[in-house]
C-alpha cells in the first residue's frame, strides 16, 4: 500500500496546489479590478445587471477562499466542490457565449486579458475540473483504500482506516 500511497500523495499535493493556486491568483487579480470583472460578466449577456454586480463582488472571494481550502487542505473537499461548481458554471457560460458567436473576453483571470471565449477556455476548465475531482475525490470513490495519504495531505476529513 505504501508504494502506491506515496505517488498518489504527491499527485494530490501537486494537483491541489496547481488548481487551488490558480484560483487563488485568479481571485486576487479579479479583486484588483472589480469593475473590469463586472464588464466581463455583463459581456456574456446572460444575467440581469443586479445579479452581475453581486457575482462580480462575490465570485473573487469565493475563488480565493475555496482555492486556499484546496491548497492548505483545511476543508479540502468543500473547497473542491465549490471550485468544481464554479468551473462547471464558467464552462457553461463560455459555451453559451461561444454558441451565440460572441467575441468577448473570457474574464477568467484579470480583466482585460487576452483570453477569449472559445474551445480553449472550455478545454482548460474541463482539464482543471478533472484534475480537481481526481485529487479531492479519487480516494473516496475507490472506497478509500489509501486513506493515509489523504490524512497526510492535510485533509482533516480523510476516512479512518476502520476496516483494518
Amino acid at each position, binding site marked *: 500500500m505504501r508504494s502506491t500511497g506515496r505517488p498518489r500523495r504527491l499527485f494530490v499535493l501537486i494537483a491541489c496546489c496547481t488548481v487551488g493556486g490558480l484560483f487563488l491568483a485568479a481571485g486576487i487579480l479579479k*479583486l484588483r*479590478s*472589480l*469593475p*473590469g470583472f*463586472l*464588464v466581463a460578466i*455583463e*459581456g456574456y*449577456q*446572460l*444575467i*440581469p*445587471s*443586479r*445579479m*452581475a*454586480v*453581486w457575482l*462580480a*463582488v*462575490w465570485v*473573487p*472571494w*469565493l475563488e*480565493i*477562499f*475555496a482555492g486556499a*481550502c484546496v491548497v492548505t487542505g483545511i*476543508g479540502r*473537499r*468543500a*473547497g473542491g*466542490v*465549490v471550485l468544481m461548481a464554479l468551473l462547471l458554471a464558467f464552462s457553461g457560460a463560455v459555451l453559451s457565449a461561444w454558441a451565440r*458567436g*460572441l*467575441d*468577448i473576453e473570457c474574464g477568467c483571470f484579470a480583466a*482585460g486579458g487576452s483570453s477569449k471565449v472559445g474551445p480553449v477556455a472550455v478545454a482548460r476548465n474541463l482539464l482543471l475540473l478533472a484534475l480537481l475531482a481526481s485529487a479531492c475525490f479519487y480516494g473516496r470513490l475507490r472506497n478509500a483504500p489509501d486513506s493515509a495519504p489523504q490524512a497526510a495531505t492535510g485533509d482533516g*476529513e480523510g476516512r479512518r482506516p476502520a476496516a483494518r
Partner: protein
Amino acid sequence: MARLFTQILALGIVTLGAAILFNQTRTYPLPLFGPVEASNGGIRPRSPNERFLSGPQSPGGPAAGINPPGTTGTAGAAESPPPRAALTTKLSCITSTTAKAMWESGEAVFLDARDENEFRKGHVPHAQQLGPKEFREGKPKLLKYLPEEQLYVVYCESSRECAAAEIVAGQMAIYGYRNVRVFRGGWEEWKKAGWPEEKVISESLSPNGVGK
C-alpha cells in the same frame, strides 16, 4: 455528507460576508444595494445601426456618411472593409452601473459621441468628444493619442435617441480598438442619476484637444 454540506454553506456565507465588507469599504463600491437601472437587463437589444454594421449599407442610413479607413469621399463608402461583418459581435454594451464604476475607478477613458454643442453643455467629467463626424475624413486626430489597449466607454444622448455611440465604437473597432464598450443609457441616464458632470466654459477650449 451533512458535514460537507455544512462546510460548503459556511464557505459560501463567509465569502459573501467578506465580499460585501470588502466592497463597502472600497473608495468606490459597486452598487450592491442601490437602484440598478434596467437599461438592458443583461440582454442587448438590437440597435438601429446593427443593420449598418452587419449588413449591406443602406443609402441614407444612420451612418451613410461614415467611410471605412483609408478611403475618402463617397467613392470609398461603397467598399466594405473586412472587419465590418464581424462588428456586431464585437460591440459590447454596459449599463450605467458599470459605466459609473469604470469612471470612478479610472480604468476607462470616456468618449462622448454627441456633437460639440451638446458636449459643451455638459458631459461626463474627463470625457473626450469624438463623434461620427470625425471619422468622415479617415482616422480622427484624437485617436493618435489614444492607445489601442486602453478600455474605452462611448456614449451619446441615449441609445433610444441616437446611434452615434455604436457608430463610433464600430469605427474604433475598425481602427484596431478592441476594448470599446457602449454605454447605452448615455448622457440621459448619467444626468438623471445625478452623477458628476463637466461643462466647457471657455470658447477657446477645443473639446477634441487631448490633455485640456
